[in-house]
């Protein structure tokens, strides 16, 4: 864990909320994420952590408030560009049929770009999978698939990495492998990251600051140890 970042916010939410048919999923969430920091969103199951992350990526529409990305209201950014900037990794990797390289090329191909073999190898080595480019994704283990999923998101050169319980579906060994890859990506390369996790030990290992959600509301914000040990 590195010291808390003091740089400008790359992401800021203002009174962000979502309710579906009178059910409040997220309510009045106001916080910011500074460039280069790892912010953990923690809380019990059903507290709205994943719903909040989906709002950041605009996979769901807020029913109140908004998000500013580098100071711009994200409703003024084309959804596809926004999602490229705020790259998301899900709990399950959902790899597309084909090779590892096909999966890494997916994002860039959406904007008519293609990654060179060297770039593919660099991305794979960042997640500890050098030499995996031509492997069929059907033959990967759970941990390998999740690391490919991280590399696939990185292939879009995101400003912020949004991680939704990236290790919760994995066994202990795979979990440590994926966590180590994330640590490498976010700490060694200074990528800004928002991590949703129910695993407080993982939050302590990876994040500098945290927000605690309960029933869709932020009940505590601050340095990771302040939030988790209050």
């Amino acid at each position: 864990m590195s010291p808390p970042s003091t740089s400008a916010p790359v992401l800021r939410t203002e009174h962000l909320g979502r309710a579906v048919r009178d059910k409040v999923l997220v309510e009045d969430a106001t916080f910011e994420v500074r460039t280069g920091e790892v912010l953990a969103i923690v809380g019990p199951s059903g507290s709205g952590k994943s719903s909040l992350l989906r709002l950041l990526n605009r996979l769901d529409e807020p029913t109140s408030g908004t998000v500013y990305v580098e100071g711009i209201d994200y409703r003024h950014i084309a959804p596809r560009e926004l999602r490229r900037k705020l790259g998301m990794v899900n709990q399950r990797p959902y790899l597309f049929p084909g090779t590892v390289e096909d999966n890494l090329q997916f994002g860039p191909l959406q904007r008519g770009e293609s990654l060179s073999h060297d770039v593919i190898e660099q991305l794979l080595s960042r997640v500890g999978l050098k030499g995996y480019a031509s492997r069929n994704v059907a033959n990967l283990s759970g941990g390998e698939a999740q690391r490919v999923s991280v590399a696939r998101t990185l292939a879009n050169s995101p400003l912020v990495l949004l991680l939704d319980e990236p290790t919760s579906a994995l066994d202990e060994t795979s979990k440590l492998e994926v966590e180590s890859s994330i640590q490498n990506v976010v700490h060694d390369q200074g990528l800004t990251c928002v991590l949703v996790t129910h695993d407080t030990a993982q939050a302590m290992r990876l994040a500098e600051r945290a927000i605690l959600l309960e029933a869709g509301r932020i009940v505590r914000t601050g340095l990771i140890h302040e939030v988790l040990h209050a």
Partner: protein
Amino acid sequence: MLKYFSANQLYLGLEQALIAAAAAMLVVLLARKRGIHLEREALIAMVRGLVQIVAVGSVLLLLLRAPRWTSGFLLAAMMIAAGATSARRAKGMPGAFRISAWSIAFGAGSVIALMTWLGVIDTAITSLVPVGSMLIANAMNTNGLALNRFRADVLAHVGEIETALALGADARNSVSPYVQASFEASLIPAMDSIRSLGIVWIPGLMAGMLLSGARPVYAAIYQFVVLAMIFAASGLTSLVSTLLIRDRIFTAAQQLSLQPGR
């Protein structure tokens, strides 16, 4: 066996209908044993189908003696009814009726119009309405299959679709494998009908043509013509409906609105 008991043709028909419906309901009961509940839908569909066909059958002679221009109205009414029927296969999908009706009108309507203009379908109401109704009915089935498959595929692959969206894919691209699969699956019955023509089944229309004095080879060729037209009408309908419905399951901000439980 029934004809020995029922000299009256009307009673005979009703008894035949009752036995056939009982066979269908037996299958529904067998399905129920496996936890598949079709009782209500099957019962309503059969009662409704019987009432409708008896009502139309009672006035069919009058309809078929009506002026030629009325065939357009009859076919248009069939298309609207077909749209409403197949839209029920797309529960929860916004605009399903409108999309179904327009797709059937475009798919079946354009094939009927083109084939009538080219002389493949006779303009006489006695030919245009029965052949046109076959095209519309098959387009309806294909449309229902396509929408039903698309809906099921999307609901089963929400994770994959949202992953593609999260990676910057256009909404249309994110569901293109499911559009393609729905289109292909919806055409299986039409494709298999052509493939098995004359071997597995001999259409009723052919028997009717032979009985009314058509040459056997011409009657046979015309069965192929009808099936090829059905394939064209069904394919065009499915192509249009899957493309139109694809855009309706996303919001303006490219969010997937068709979600389980929503």
